[in-house]
């Protein structure tokens, strides 16, 4: 099979205007992926499927990934002029100081597709697409018209991550019920607090149980007082 760079240049030669990036992968698996721009994604997908040499006719896996806003703290060395008094005389000197700078890298949702070729028995080629942000620009083009196997998987991504696939023939919730409002696979999803106590070693569960207990005991005490009042 072609290397990832060769595939990238083949795409750029075939689909005019397509911008393709390479997302390197640090793990020993060496499965690097191609980052597509959403405008040309469908054309690129068609090319990958129909190209005689690649013939990636089998979309195996499609999934979403949620990348939260990341606060990046980095230490930067800054050189700046400092005025110091040496032996009673003011002198301007260059001084190098370490400064901590913080900036927020905005989060995004990502759709990942794993392609194989059943005809040529090679793969995987991994495609990625990213949304503008996590709130209002969550639209990506659907690859279901190209590979039917994306149909249920894109519905699942829509259900659990909230990426809206334009051009999908039947975009509804698939796993949760229809009037469910949240996207539970997002990393900032808060699940309903509906269990009380369990013997466990997980601190967050114990903390939650303690909060429940306090609330319940409070209400139990209140109820007992109310009962006592009624009896009197």
């Amino acid at each position: 099979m072609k290397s990832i760079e060769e595939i990238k240049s083949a795409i750029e030669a075939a689909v005019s205007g397509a911008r393709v990036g390479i997302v390197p992968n640090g793990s020993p698996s060496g499965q690097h992926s191609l980052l597509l721009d959403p405008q040309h994604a469908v054309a690129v997908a068609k090319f990958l499927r129909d190209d005689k040499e690649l013939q990636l006719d089998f979309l195996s896996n499609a999934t979403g990934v949620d990348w939260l806003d990341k606060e990046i703290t980095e230490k930067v060395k800054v050189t700046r002029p400092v005025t110091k008094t040496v032996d009673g005389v003011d002198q301007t000197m260059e001084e190098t100081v370490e400064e901590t700078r913080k900036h927020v890298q905005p989060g995004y949702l990502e759709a990942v597709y794993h392609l194989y070729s059943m005809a040529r028995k090679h793969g995987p080629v991994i495609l990625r697409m990213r949304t503008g942000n996590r709130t209002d620009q969550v639209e990506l083009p659907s690859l279901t018209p190209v590979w039917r196997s994306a149909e249920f998987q894109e519905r699942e991504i829509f259900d659990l991550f909230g990426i809206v696939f334009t051009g999908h023939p039947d975009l509804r919730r698939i796993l949760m019920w229809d009037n469910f409002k949240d996207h539970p696979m997002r990393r900032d999803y808060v699940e309903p607090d509906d269990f009380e106590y369990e013997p466990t070693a997980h601190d967050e569960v114990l903390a939650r149980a303690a909060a429940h207990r306090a609330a319940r005991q409070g209400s139990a005490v209140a109820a007992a007082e109310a009962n006592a009042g009624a009896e009197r």
Partner: protein
Amino acid sequence: MAVDEKLKIELGKQGVFVTTLQELYNWGRRSSIWPMQFGLACCAIEMIATTMARYDMARFGAEVFRPSPRQADLMIVSGTVTKKMAPQVVRLYNQMAEPKYVIAMGACAISGGPFKQGYNVLKGIDRYIPVDVHIPGCPPRPEALLHAFITLQKKIDEQHLTGEERPPHLDGGAQGEFPVPEYGEHDLEPPSNPGVWPVPITIR
């Protein structure tokens, strides 16, 4: 009126069969419990294995799995009840005719089991319907299901036909149907039925 056990055996030796209506009635009920053909998850496979040749549930008169809740006496909640499935489970229970019994099979049906922390997992079916026998295990072995079954038979044997503790189907005022929870925007509404499952206060 209870017959003296020794006298009964003595009479039996002479070929005279003495029983009470209650015993006869309960014997008939416990010997042909028809479970509902209804599997939820992993435990359902073990439930099927229980009905197969090796464990042979037919020995206990319960091999007739009925597809319709109207014909079933026993609901074996075999597996994880998710929030999406819970209303249907309650509805099926409501459709069963009295007398009806419930076995919660496996950790998931009891409490949510390993999936307890999941957002779509109901933390035990006894939040919505009354359960007669709980069997732990993930999944319980077929022997455990048989044990649960025998336990249920013992329970039926001990039911009185009259008095305060009579089973619900003989008690005109007893509750036979339970409210079906509805799909909310974030969770089921209500998250539990306090009439069936008073929220436990754990004090440690």
